[in-house]
């Protein structure tokens, strides 16, 4: 059975990105997960080819750059998590 990219509808081959709230990476040659990207138990609802995933990643990075505030230092965040 052939799988197709959810965005461009081209046949999926080689390396495939499964996308939901996290990303899973598959080797289409043998159906295995590609380490070390964690496999999750949730069902992937979108399979993307490399080109479409790259566009998806670029878009998310661009959108979130403005949202993520840099006025709190990383160490303060990690400390805050630690001592909650």
């Amino acid at each position, binding site marked *: 059975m052939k799988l197709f990219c959810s965005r461009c509808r081209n046949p999926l081959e*080689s*390396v495939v*990105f499964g996308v939901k709230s*996290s*990303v899973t*990476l598959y*080797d289409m*040659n043998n159906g*295995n*997960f*590609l*380490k*070390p*990207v*964690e*496999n999750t138990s949730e069902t992937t609802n979108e399979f993307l080819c*490399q080109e479409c*995933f*790259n566009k*998806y*990643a670029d878009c*998310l*990075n661009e959108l*979130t*750059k403005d949202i*993520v505030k840099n006025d709190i230092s*990383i*160490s303060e*965040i*990690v400390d805050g*998590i*630690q001592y909650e």
Partner: protein
Amino acid sequence: MFRFTDNIIAQTTLQCNLNCKYCYEGSKIKSSKKQMSVADFKKALDTAIYQRCILGNINNKLIWHFHGGEPFLYDWEDFKECIRYIHRRAKKFPNVTYCVQSNGLCINEEIAKFFAADKCSIGISFDGFSTRERMPEEKTNYLINNLRDLKKSTGVRFSCLSVFSRSNMKNWFTDMVSTSDLFDSFGINVLVPSENNDDLAPTSEEQWKYWLEPCLKSYLSDSPIKERFVNMMVERFFTDVVLHTEDTDIKKTGCFDRICGHGINMINIDPSLNVHNCDKYLEEGTFIKNRYEENLDSYDFLGLEQIKRYGEYCKNIFDLEHKTGCDKCYASNLCLGGCQSYNLSRYNEYKLDTTMCDIYKRVFDFIRVNWIEILKHNYVQATKTILGINPDFIRELENTGYFITIDSDINTIHLYKEK
């Protein structure tokens, strides 16, 4: 950039008290800083924890490798403060830990006691007694005797990492056997050809004769030399061929995987907090100027940039494997394919090392023929969750009086004899 990284090779100092001919670390690296400040260390560690354990999973593994140069030339009080900081973080993020790789010359009683109390084994770079590439023979003897004394007096533990080259290969195995009272484990890095070291790089036949074959044969005894790569191949054979297994637990990857973890599960940081794919061959090779470099503050939402690069890297390797026929090779699960960081810096492309094809098949055939004897003398750990045993192998045990036992708590198999 750390979302999927569980190994950070950190060059806390570029200072070194040796000048090994084949060294790819340390003084050649073009970093504006020669030492990583404690403040920078904390910033780098917290950045990695934030991406790996807060945006990822609180239980994600993260190992900080103190590297160099020579790590024990880093100010000792600063070193201890860094380790204390790691412990502080580990209270909340339980799989954040550290390790050290050293030439051992600076280790004194105070340092040994500290690491013994911390229950952290120190990695020692030791090539054997017969080579002068790292240090003079008398210095090597002094080092080993000193480490033995420290182990006896403090209980500190050591592991051994050797550079395997033509200058030490003939005596490497016997030197490791003679130091098996000192070192808990052994590993090697095979020296690969470069402009300075072409004459020192061992051929594939030499790697078989002086490293692989003697280590494999030692598995047929009760005192094997479990060199890490040979041990990985033995474990993989049993996991993928003898057993039925499921890949439910993502294990650490790095140098020991077909898709090596450079830039994803393994990353290098220099004292100026520049981030590179890998510490290997950073400053050698015609194309080193093309190497991937990023600053710690570079933005990468949820590691998506890391996955993009990794996906492209996987695809390149898969295409190569298809061209060379590696994807159809029966020994492919034991084979590494070569160091891609090295290939990028020397040749500006990914390559598969086909000079070792025959050798890896020999390794596979050896384990296949001797699997029963190996299991009689060793508890072999599977690298995936064990679901069952390949019936072909159960049939081979018929009438031998031996049975396979599986310890599911520690995921190992062994043979026991019916009384």
